[in-house]
């Protein structure tokens, strides 16, 4: 590497001068199709808006994170680039990671579920197979096929997960038909008997007269964040950027579970208002309410205080009622942008992963 590095970095400098970007400290691959817009929205929400001079370009930057270069790749390529180390960080589908991962590929799972691009890898059969409602039925049919001298043909883009799933369910006799085209059409075209494919809404399956089965879900998937182990282990600069990314993602995702509520309450003193509020556990907040004085406008009443509490989203209406009981007239509710805790837990988990090397025994 030492012999090549100066050359490579000079090339980077040249490229950087040409494009007007500094040599990136960290490369991050984002999915270019399917999940692209959702990913850009997600990053923007987390405060990492991607700046792309031209939507046709496949390079971009994240102004909020100095030294990050963004590359747009197909979801499977995102995984491959992170695995080979030409990219340090990537967002791809969890299903893709499960299918393509190897034990020794050095890909670290940094955040398994980013909360969007949800889908499932499922086994589906023709709707007309009315005698089939579960995976067990498929096992029986594969045995029946076998007696008549043929294999159950399964069309999929996910041969590894499919093979494991079928064996685990006692389906031993099958042929995987690897196909990149329209899988859903395979049974109708007599290219396969059943399919294993990604389903999000189920509309495509239904339109192709296919149905899901009980026990037929192989993997539930969402967008996920992965990183290259070697890159993050050997470069403190990269690790620092990853820390920032994880901090923002984790705090943003956590913030969705909370609202900030502010109600105006009349009382003799801040302490008196605080006592009234904390007597209702629903609005005790994470630590307790923040009470601040409301300065009346000209001619307004004295003795009003604003009590602010952060509550879980699912308890919103209960909290509003509690504030009312504590004497609040009107309550304003604001979503949170971030919710940081004492530590970034996903970064702590990453540090643990980096320090313990997988061993054989």
């Amino acid at each position: 590497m030492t012999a090549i590095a100066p050359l490579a970095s000079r090339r980077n400098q040249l490229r950087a001068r040409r494009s007007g970007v500094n040599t990136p400290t960290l490369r991050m691959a984002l999915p270019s199709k399917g999940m692209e817009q959702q990913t850009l929205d997600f990053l923007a929400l987390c405060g990492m808006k991607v700046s792309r001079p031209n939507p046709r370009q496949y390079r971009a930057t994240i102004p909020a994170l100095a030294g990050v270069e963004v590359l747009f790749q197909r979801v499977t390529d995102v995984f491959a680039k992170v695995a080979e180390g030409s990219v340090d960080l990537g967002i791809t589908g969890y299903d893709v990671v499960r299918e393509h991962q190897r034990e020794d590929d050095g890909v670290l799972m940094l955040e398994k579920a980013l909360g969007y691009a949800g889908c499932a890898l499922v086994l589906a059969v023709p709707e007309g197979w009315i005698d089939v409602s579960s995976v067990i039925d498929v096992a029986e049919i594969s045995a029946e096929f076998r007696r008549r001298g043929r294999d159950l043909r399964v069309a999929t883009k996910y041969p590894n997960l499919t093979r494991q799933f079928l064996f685990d369910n006692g389906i031993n006799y099958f042929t995987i038909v690897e196909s990149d085209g329209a899988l859903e059409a395979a049974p109708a075209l007599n290219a396969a008997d059943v399919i294993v494919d990604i389903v999000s809404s189920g509309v495509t399956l239904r339109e192709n007269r296919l149905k899901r089965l009980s026990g037929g879900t192989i993997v539930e998937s969402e967008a996920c964040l992965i990183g290259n182990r070697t890159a993050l282990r050997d470069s403190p600069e990269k690790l620092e950027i990853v820390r920032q990314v994880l901090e923002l993602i984790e705090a943003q995702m956590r913030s969705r579970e909370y609202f900030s509520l502010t109600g105006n309450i009349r009382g003799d003193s801040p302490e008196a208002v605080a006592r009234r509020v904390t007597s209702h556990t629903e609005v005790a907040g994470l630590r307790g309410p923040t009470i601040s004085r409301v300065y009346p406008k000209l001619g307004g009443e004295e003795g009003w205080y604003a009590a602010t509490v952060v509550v879980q989203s699912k308890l919103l209406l209960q909290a509003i009622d509690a504030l009312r009981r504590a004497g609040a007239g009107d309550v304003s509710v604001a979503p949170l942008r971030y919710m940081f805790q004492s530590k970034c837990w996903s970064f702590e988990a990453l540090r643990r992963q980096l320090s313990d090397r997988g061993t054989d025994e």
Partner: protein
Amino acid sequence: METLDVQRVRGMNDALPGEDARLRALTATLRDHFERFGYRGIDTPVLENLDLFLRKSGEEVAARMYTFTHWNRKLCLRPELTASVMRAYVGNLRDRPLPVRVHYAGPTFRYEKPQRGRYRQFTQVGIECIGAGGPSADAEVLAAACGALERTGLVGFRVVLGHLGVVLQLLEQLGIDEHGQNLILGNMEALARRGAAPDEVLPRILGLMGVGNAADLNADTEHDDEDSISLLPSLLSEFGSEGAAHVASDLLARANLMLEGGTRTPEEIVSRLVAKAGRPDPTDRVARAVDFIVQLQRLAGPPEVAFGRIGALLAEHELDPAPLREIERALALLPSYGVNQPEVVVDLSLGRGLRYYTGLVFELHADAVGGVSSQIGGGGRYDDLVRSLGGREGVPACGFSFGLERIKLALDAEGSEPTGDRAVDVVVAPIDEDDEPPAVAIATRLRQAGLDVELDVRRRGVRANLRHADRERVPYVVIVGERERVDGRALLRDMASRSEQALDADALVAAVRTGR
């Protein structure tokens, strides 16, 4: 420069010199013992057609095989040797007088989580006795296994003896179909060995049989037509099997359900639907089978107590006690085989995880591996395997295999003296280039005399050679220098006594041989 070293594949180990010598010595000891019983060596390919292992292996093994498609042919690395040996028998050995007795040793592969004593490539050493039924052959195989372990010097091991005949009888009596039987036998291991609670195993079996709601645990919430379709079979059952197909076709036509387009014909689908509707709910029977297996496991113990207790249970269920008699007869023969009575546990819930066993089964466990008992071998009777591999007639057969690496671990844990790993007998060191021809000639003479000779091909010099011999515990060093060229004698140094003698070639051979 970034290192480009290639790592070994996870779970696969190098047997380095020393380790390799020990494993080979151990293999030789075991196979030599089998030769005493008239078994002869056989070797089969590591690569097999996938189909061979799918016939009778069961999910436990099938899901853990290394399988791949090579030019459209489905192949796998063998997960065990019995099926390969039986395939070789069916293909090539059927004209031999029975029984055919063979022993084997070779690498096998299973994709499991690697841990101490469990590797993805491991070595099986074992025997198969093909064409002999009954306890006489069972006893021979069991005695050969125990005797072979004694030969290796292993002291603390235990024999667990079972018999599939009892559970198979019960399943037959309960009228559980083959699919169900396989599932129950496959889960016997989980029930008995790993101490899984019956109320965890029962829903699992029922789920895999398509009964109960275990299969629906990860069912998809958005199914809307699921309920109506699962009602159909029960509806159909009211019409009897005669009119059912007709009614079904009619119903389907009314529902405007497209049965064509897929790869199964409407007739196939309807007839299976009717057949499915006619099946009685097996829940109760499976629960009784599971309960029975748990009882068997509780009654396990040393033969003198277990036979009575298990006999009573069999009588209660009106099951034929013949399997128990077979175990008794096999056990009774062991003392005559000279096997020093090992600790025996009779446990009729022993299942072995493989589907092909039909009669007596056994496992051998070492006591001392890290304080926990470790299975080092196992086997049993599989009277149906030949037929399922294409043999026209059923041929009774039995056999067993050891996990070679497990035996080695058990011996290590007992602190037994390693055998097989020994230094060479002598180092022959020429001093100058001119000394090489006589040195090579002396080395050759020593080798012809059956000695292990290491020739110094790096010309390290006398002192370095002596240091090397010392470190590697080589007892003798022969130094070939000017004198050899002059009077045909070389200097023999005895590393233990540090004495040196100038000897001619014959005397050298004699001296090293006696000192060996």
